[in-house]
């Protein structure tokens, strides 16, 4: 009976109360897992959608050279790390991984620069009126990344 009381007195650990720990854990997930995690509950969903540092970590965790601090404001201004990941980093990673058959490769400076450039072009097009016939303002210059790979 004493043991039961002690158990009841001991505070239960509830992960949703410890957001910083939760974020630390989520930072270590890869893209698809993060998407799955977002489906767990509303809190997690809100967190994953709004906390850009998660995505920042996801984008550049494998970068061999640390990025200069000026990168963050630029990325944030252009639409944030989540958009960078979904629009550029994920397709670039998967496309390059396909061609080189290496998972979790280390990113060099060139890949980072390329992704950022593509991201910037994409943001520019989203500013609207890119001259397309049907006035389609969706990210079209990145469509080549999304096209199915010729099997």
């Amino acid at each position: 009976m004493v043991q039961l009381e002690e158990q009841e007195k001991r505070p239960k650990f509830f992960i949703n109360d410890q957001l910083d720990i939760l974020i630390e854990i989520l930072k270590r997930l890869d893209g698809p897992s993060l998407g799955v995690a977002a489906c767990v509950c509303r809190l997690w969903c809100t967190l994953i959608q709004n906390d850009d540092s998660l995505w920042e970590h996801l984008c550049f965790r494998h970068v061999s050279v640390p990025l200069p601090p000026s990168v963050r404001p630029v990325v944030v201004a252009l639409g944030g790390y989540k958009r960078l990941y979904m629009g550029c980093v994920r397709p670039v990673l998967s496309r390059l991984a396909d061609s080189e058959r290496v998972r979790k490769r280390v990113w060099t400076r060139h890949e980072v620069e390329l992704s950022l450039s593509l991201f910037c072009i994409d943001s520019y097009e989203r500013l609207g009126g890119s001259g397309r016939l049907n006035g389609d303002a969706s990210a079209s210059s990145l469509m080549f990344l999304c096209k199915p790979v010729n099997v």
Partner: protein
Amino acid sequence: MKRNHKATLEFGGGGSGYGVGGSGNSSSVVVKGECSTMSSAKAKMWGEEHEAGGMDELLGALGYKVRSSDMADVAQKLEELEMVMGTAQEDGISHLACDTVHYDPTDLYGWVQRMLTELNNSPNDPTEFFGNHQIPNIDFENQSPVFNDDSEYDLRAIPGMAAYPQIEPDSESSQKRVRSSSVGSDSIPVLPPSPSASNVSESTRPVVLDDSQEAGVRLVHTLMACAEAVQQNNLKLADALVKHVGVLATSQAGAMRKVATYFAQALARRIYRIYPDEALDSSFSDMLHMHFYESSPYLKFAHFTANQAILEAFATANRVHVIDFGLKQGMQWPALIQALALRSGGPPKFRLTGIGPPQPDNTDALQQVGWKLAQLAETIGVQFEFRGYVCNSLADLDPTHLETRPGEAVAVNSVLELHRTLARPGAVEKVLSTIKAIKPQIVTIVEQEANHNGLVFLDRFSEALHYYSSLFDSLEGSAAGLTPPSQDLIMSELYLGRQICNVVACEESERVERHETLAQWRTRMVSAGFDPVRLGSNAFKQASMLLALFAGGEGYRVEESNGCLMLGWHTRPLIATSAWKIPATES
């Protein structure tokens, strides 16, 4: 000799049998001209019992108006040729004596003429854009697949002498091809590669072409014959041939069909003198340009490599000024602005002067693009200034108009624009001297890697055919597996089709697509006083990585050539980036 006659006998027998059988069909199965040649040679051997009034009766029954004497002539020339070839000992043609040689029956007269003139003169290469004169090899015994071709012909349109001798033999220079069995993609019958690719050992392998390849080869022949007819102002023949191209093109699929259609349309325009309306809405052409930008890596490659060169030139500048000779939608500049923003030491003050053509509806397209770029620059924290400059031609530019300020580093950027100035004499020199007058740190030039500005129409035509075939092939390769074809693909092809039309159908100052090769531009820039700047390995790596991202892009190749970068499809470079600066002593 013996062999020839024996083959003739077999063949002639088979041929005339086929012909007789064929004439009974309602769908007129056409017996090829060479068949008639063979049977006439046979006729000659067995005695000219068929000669009546010059026209061969046997063939007359089939609807051909051919003189037996002409065919006898051909046969005699064949015999002469065989004799000469059998004893040829000179360098370069001694292989004729020892290696097995088979005949291409689709065009004997013209081919024989050529061979004779060649052997009689010195065996040097007469202006051939097809390198070697390899005799195409088709094993006689395996002829039957070729003759299953059921396509209908207007006989006069057959690019060959055998059926209609009035056609000049020279039109069949295109018959000389190495029909190697390793024709690359089925969509494009490869025009003969560089001479090093064809060698004697390959030519002795007997090759049988299947129908679609045969039709593709014939399509190319017909196009070339039509172009030659146009060059010689033989418009009646050209007209017949152009219609024939249309028929043949339907038998092809994919890129070859589209290329052939565009070239046929352009030839038709040239024949009928219906010149395309140049005053087309430039927003339409901008839109096509955008689709081309999206569907293929060429423009992206151009932008990335040029930006890299500009970035490296601006490494330490505090105020930079870029002059873009063709602003269009300004797609090149976001990436540069972003790269400047992330530069170590902080971004410089960035000034852009965009040059563009006047708009028919008087909207200020340049200003709209400038505004968009300004928005982007403000978002990422780069001080930005824009000025639009409208002019009809780059030669109208004056250094004072560009308002360069002291203390700023200037870059001049021209992507696929400079070749237009070659349409008017003296214009390109004026542009280059204007550039020199504003003393830029770097001049980046991107141009198509092809010579479409030769003096001879036929040369331009064949160069363009080769170039645009590769280009269309690459577009097809990237879009493979997508049905229905994406809007991007269709629009890109239209964009290229308009270029084709300009190269083929226009002349004088209207022909603005005067592409020249990197080597030619190099000569021009060096003689104008510019020094080359080597594009570094960064540009190369970025370009290679960019290409790796393109689906279906395994055919793209980045090459480095003397410090310049070229992007090509398989072995054919298609676009080249080069960078230049003014020598230090002058500035």
